[in-house]
């Protein structure tokens, strides 16, 4: 499936202005080369996501937000999340699936 690039378009700007997008600051390098670890992204609130989506989720056991890629979607809606740099990413391989209520949304664009 061809994934849409995360371009910051006029449409994304308008959606952000009207409150349909939330802004987050990415920190860390486990999603290289997609994110270098200092970008800001816009996120669309969503509970239903697809394999290959870049998502923001709540860590299952700690009070922090993670940005990872959806590796797969389970029958109950939970998702397996993975970092792009597997050797330095803590993700579903260690903490298991992320349940629906912990999904914040899908990254739709990169601000820079």
């Amino acid at each position: 499936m061809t994934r849409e690039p995360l371009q910051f378009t006029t449409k994304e700007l308008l959606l952000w202005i009207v409150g349909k997008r939330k802004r987050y600051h990415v920190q860390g390098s486990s999603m290289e080369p997609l994110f270098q670890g200092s970008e800001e992204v816009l996120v669309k609130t969503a509970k239903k996501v697809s394999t290959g989506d870049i998502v923001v989720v709540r860590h299952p056991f700690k009070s922090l937000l993670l940005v990872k890629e959806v590796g797969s979607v389970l029958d109950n809606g939970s998702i397996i999340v993975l970092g792009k740099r597997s050797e330095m990413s803590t993700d579903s391989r260690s903490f298991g699936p992320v349940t629906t209520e912990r999904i914040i949304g899908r990254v739709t664009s990169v601000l820079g």
Partner: protein
Amino acid sequence: MNNSALSFLKKIKPAPVVHAHCDGPCGVYDPAQARVAAEAVLSMTKKILDLERPSGNDKQQWVAYQNTLSRYIHIKEEEAQKTKKHLLVLWTDFFKPEHLEKFPNLHDVFWKAAKACSSCKVEVSLEHAEELLEHVQKIHNMFWEAKGKKVAWVLANG
């Protein structure tokens, strides 16, 4: 988005952080760590070679000499081991299979650098210490080329 506008926005309304790393401290890679340790190995090697033995049988002088020599050797050993550790992290965690296309001798450079660390521990050799620093410089160059940046090789003791 325009860089100035984004910088302004970041200042006036910082965004919540989303972590793209493991929940423990992640590797922040920089061959400078290996360079500093390798420079220390060279420095301690020189100090050991330059250390003058007491000329007579004065006990105090010999105690001071042995103490100083022991400490120099201990630090040389530690710094050589640190160099090895920092190099291992770069080799196993930073460099990826695709870097082998650009640097086909990558594994060989790291292997020789690791061996030089051991040689510096086993011997008091200016040649091995300088060789170690040369290997670290090659790794420095590969690292920054892999990152697409130009970072000069600057010695702390240069």
